[in-house]
């Protein structure tokens, strides 16, 4: 059995699964239920100045019968009185001393307000603070949330205020509503943050009710841009995470990965790209806190199979495998192969290749089943047929190198090698 224990900035938790700052971590009753279910830690929903919420608040992207492929919210930071939140945080820490308790903060834009919030948080006994520089709706209009995270100078200044008084680890949560997260990350590190987390939600419109013509979510006939998360944002989050894991400055601080993590596989992927732990929200909001059991179990089994004893054994292992395009080996060439015994003759590979790719699949019409074979000389090895094939391992990509030598684009140009294959 692998050891799932996680230490993030010295904060220990029995597993690397934290609940992200969001509705599930807004109240003691929720957080108690989460800890009873087995979550390693929580980031308490953002505390700050008093706000007022509206209804409705959520909407989703559903696809081909799968609900909640993406999730969108227009909820603000915690709308509960600060003193109740602080008291409950203290109570939960006493009930579950082995779990990580991080408190998300978003104070008004002045030094005193931040000092006050940080001090009050430390008084609860919380193990760490997460600075909400990412919320893309509601708070932005007041000069908070993402409007802080989008401006590296302001972000740095706020972190400096926080660090003046903070005696517990500080994590800065970054917004993805930027071209690159690296400038903001570098700035907050310069400001003294101890760690980073990303991504916060992405501004979005999930869809429109085609009867009322009002976009979702509908608040009395109107809507606003919301914050998008859930499985659909995972690839975007992984990309931003990788840029931090590869930058010489930002890679020096631990990163908590967030963005559409629903299963142990998603978690493993975030950690392989440099996250020391992960935070989850949408999946829990869809299915409840019980999902953490398979997250722990699945990760444990995978670690056992791979021979990893601890989380640290594999954090970041995939980072060096992401390179720049011009460094890829042009002589590497693969072509598709269809296992005729496994093929169920659905034709999806054929029509995808014929209509949208390189016309590399031969068809022999039959009744009712057609036969499909790869025209190896035409195949560019794009993976499309394998992607659309519904049968596992029916289409495989086989290596047929164009040459023995590893030649990348830079070298290719240097040697003046031919450009057009067609």
């Amino acid at each position, binding site marked *: 059995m692998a050891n799932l224990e996680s230490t993030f900035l010295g904060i220990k938790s029995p597993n690397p699964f934290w609940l992200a700052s969001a509705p599930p971590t807004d109240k003691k009753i929720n957080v108690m239920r989460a800890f009873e279910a087995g979550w390693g830690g929580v980031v308490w929903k953002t505390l700050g100045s008093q706000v007022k919420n509206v209804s409705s608040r959520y909407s989703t992207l559903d696809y081909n019968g799968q609900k909640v492929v993406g999730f969108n919210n227009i909820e603000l930071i915690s709308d509960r009185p600060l003193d109740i939140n602080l008291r409950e945080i203290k109570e939960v820490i006493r009930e579950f001393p082995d779990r990580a308790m991080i408190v998300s903060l978003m104070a008004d834009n002045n030094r005193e307000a931040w000092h006050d919030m940080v001090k009050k948080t430390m008084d609860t006994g919380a193990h760490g603070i997460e600075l909400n520089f990412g919320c893309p709706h509601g708070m932005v209009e007041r000069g908070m949330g993402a409007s802080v995270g989008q401006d590296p100078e302001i972000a740095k200044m706020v972190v400096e205020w926080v660090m003046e008084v903070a005696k517990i680890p500080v994590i800065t949560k970054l917004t993805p509503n930027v071209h690159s997260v690296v400038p903001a990350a570098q700035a907050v590190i310069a400001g003294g943050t101890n760690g980073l987390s990303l991504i916060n939600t992405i501004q979005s419109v999930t869809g429109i009710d085609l009867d009322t013509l009002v976009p979702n979510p509908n608040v009395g006939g109107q809507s606003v841009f919301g914050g998008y998360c859930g499985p659909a944002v995972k690839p975007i989050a992984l990309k931003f995470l990788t840029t931090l894991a590869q930058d010489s400055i930002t890679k020096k601080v631990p990163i908590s990965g967030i963005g559409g993590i629903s299963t142990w596989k998603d978690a493993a992927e975030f950690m392989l790209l440099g996250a020391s732990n992960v935070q989850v929200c949408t999946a829990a909001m869809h299915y409840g806190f019980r999902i953490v059991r398979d997250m722990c179990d699945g990760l444990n089994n995978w670690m056992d199979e791979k021979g990893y004893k601890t989380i640290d054994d594999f954090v970041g292992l995939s980072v060096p495998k992401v390179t720049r395009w011009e460094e890829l080996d042009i002589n590497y060439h693969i072509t598709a192969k269809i296992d005729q015994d496994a093929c169920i003759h659905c034709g999806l590979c054929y029509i995808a290749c014929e209509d949208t790719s390189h016309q590399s699949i031969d068809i022999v*019409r039959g009744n009712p089943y*057609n036969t499909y074979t790869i025209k190896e000389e035409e195949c560019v090895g794009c993976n499309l047929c394998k992607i659309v094939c519904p*049968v596992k391992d029916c289409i495989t990509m086989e290596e047929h190198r164009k040459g023995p030598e590893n030649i990348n684009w830079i070298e290719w140009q240097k040697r003046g090698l031919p450009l057009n294959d067609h």
Partner: protein
Amino acid sequence: MPIQNNRLSHEELVHNFSDIHPPFEHEEGAIIEANRCINCYDAPCTKSCPTSIDVPMFIKQIASGNVKGSAKTILSSNIMGAGCSKVCPVEKLCEGSCVYNLLEEEPISIAKLQRYSTEKAIANNWKLFERKASNGKKVAVIGAGPAGLSCAHTLSLQGIDVTVYEKEEKGGGLMTYGVAAYKVTPTFCKEEVDYITSVGGIDIKYKQELGKDITLADLQKQYDAVFLGIGVGIARELEIPGEEMDGVVDAISFIYNLRTNDYSKIAVGDKVAVIGMGMTAIDAATQSKRLGAKEVTMIYRRTENEKPCTDVELDIAKLDGCSFIWLAAPKEVKGENGKVKQLVCSKMKLGEPDASGRRAPVDTGELFTIDVDMVIKAAGQIPFEDLVSKSSLQNKGGKIAIAASGETNIKGVFAGGDAVNGGKEVVDAVQAGKNGAKGILTYLGIK
């Protein structure tokens, strides 16, 4: 107890004749199933449908929430798509070729999804088709069965005024008069016929029988073209001693009575023998049981491997508690006072393959006898040979001969469906009606 009616309570009869393939109760069920379809290209299901319904298209239209479009996709290829979703032996057609079968998984419930869309179309009377303005051409269609209605609908859309002559009181043909009641109800059949004719330009004249009330020669004079969709009708005789006895009935009449009377009025025996193993034989056997017959024995001269019905149909009979004697052929009906008492059969064995490609049954000469009080003959139907010959139509044993265009030897007279093929599925007749209509349109120089 001899042959008698009213064996079961009203409640039992209602239960026994309720829908054997219930529809999706909720939209969610249809959408889950629709999303399971992988949307094959050049789909095997479509290729296995005699009317070539674009199955992946209509299923994905259900998934996308375009149910109206889905119904149109179905009905554009098969105007009796609603009825076919209930009576088609899909296990040997669309669903039988679903690629999921190759993964040893349940095929997509194509029929159930088709029913979902088409029943909505009928219930809401969706106007999916618009008829072109009348072009003054007139066509007579004989028979308001699947072939005739399909032909009439196709022609009407092109602006032709169609008059349909039907010998029965209702349209739908075998769908109305020859299918087990637990598959389609007469009420549904009427709704389907009404929906088809609601496009306009189709006038059905009932109780008009060819050769009796009308003649082909007269119709040829009155109309620009004629389509014959007269079906088959006469039950094949067993040609054995005792066949004339009280208690020997043919399956076609038996089922016809079931379709036109209250179930409580239909008499069955205690011990019923059904001769044959086609779809009609199954319908007769299962419905005898459902009317309250104590024992129903199906007798077939070949083995289960050669049976004409599908496994799914056989399973219905098995689940209804019918028993089966394979490799047996009836030799004599014995009785007392003109009433059936026993059926004498020959034991058969399989010989060399015959014209159908199946191994032919060979009489071993060994006899056995079973006690029965009712014998239902379902050994196939034979075409209206006399009628066809008297109308000077070229035919083969009563099956009307047609060219690729659907035209018979008589100019301007077309034919299709059971009258031509000797008796196939409803869906085949629908396609034959489409083909005939296409031939007629070409003949009339339209399109």
